[in-house]
């Protein structure tokens, strides 16, 4: 019984620590709801720390290809993410057009994009540190680096 308790404690402790590590950078949240026939409903929560980690398993030539295709915009996104990280919570862009409402803002170190209309809701939340990491890795994977 004691052995079982020890094993449970060990497993529980491991799960708590692994969870804390996985969630240390926050979450990437993607919520898409299309209110029409056949519309998709996607709700995805991914620990942000997993993304740069997972990129290490992407074949080198695929990363190189992606970096090559995005080479013109990567420095811009990198600079943008780096500067956005310094900002407090702020509404950067807001657009209202009839029933549509789109917002682009920073919230607690996250970049948040919200689009709401009568027939769809799209909410995206990405930690800026993750965006910075991913772009940095892509830049390092580019040809000639």
């Amino acid at each position, binding site marked *: 019984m004691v052995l079982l308790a020890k*094993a449970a404690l*060990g497993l529980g402790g491991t799960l708590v620590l692994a969870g804390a590590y996985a969630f240390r950078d926050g979450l990437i*949240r993607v919520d898409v709801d299309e209110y029409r026939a056949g519309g998709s409903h996607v709700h995805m929560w991914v620990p942000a720390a997993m993304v740069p980690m997972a990129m290490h398993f992407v074949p080198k030539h695929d990363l190189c290809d992606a970096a090559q295709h995005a080479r013109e915009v990567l420095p811009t996104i990198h600079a943008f993410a780096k500067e956005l990280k310094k900002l407090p919570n702020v509404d950067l862009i807001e657009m209202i057009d009839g029933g549509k409402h789109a917002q682009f803002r920073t919230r607690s170190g996250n970049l948040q994009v919200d689009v709401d209309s009568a027939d769809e809701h799209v909410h995206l939340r990405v930690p800026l540190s993750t965006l910075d990491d991913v772009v940095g890795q892509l830049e390092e994977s580019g040809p000639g680096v």
Partner: protein
Amino acid sequence: MKTALISAMVLALLPVRAPAQGGAAPAKPAPSRSSAAAENAERWLHVRVISTDGRGETVRVNLPLELAEKVLPAVNHDRLHNGKVRIDPSEMNDVDLRALMEAIRTAKEGQYVTVEGDVRVAKEGNHLTIHVRDKSASKKSQVEVKVPIKVIDALLSAGKDELDLVAALHALGAQGDTELVSVQDSENTVKVWLDSKNVAD
């Protein structure tokens, strides 16, 4: 127990970054700013477009000048490189912008151009102001542009046939709260202004 201890050791040895807030993640204190950021962080460029055509179209943009200053040099597209825009001399119709600006800078204050009372270009204080009133059009529009002369100087500080946008933004950051552009007609109201607040009024 061993598993937990080994995991704890491994995790303790891995580099840990300050946690970002989101979902279940713990709260993070406000990010600290660099001295450069703090110096210029209070300057925000705001754009507000409000349409009164019934659909209630509204666009609000709040952008820290420092962000624009840092991001612009990273954009290399078409004529924009390193925060500078290349001007095609053939599009300038032989107008020497620098000579024109030098003439305005050294000239006395007052109105320079007046076209039938509808267009007025003037030097007022340290600003170049342009007022356009279109009374003939059905929309009855009114445009007012007020640009600090130091900003125009900075804009023209790059090499020949180039406009230095980053230098202009930097010069703009040194200005006080000011309204830069105001457009008003029967359907739209556009306002571009600079202040130290990170929200539009």
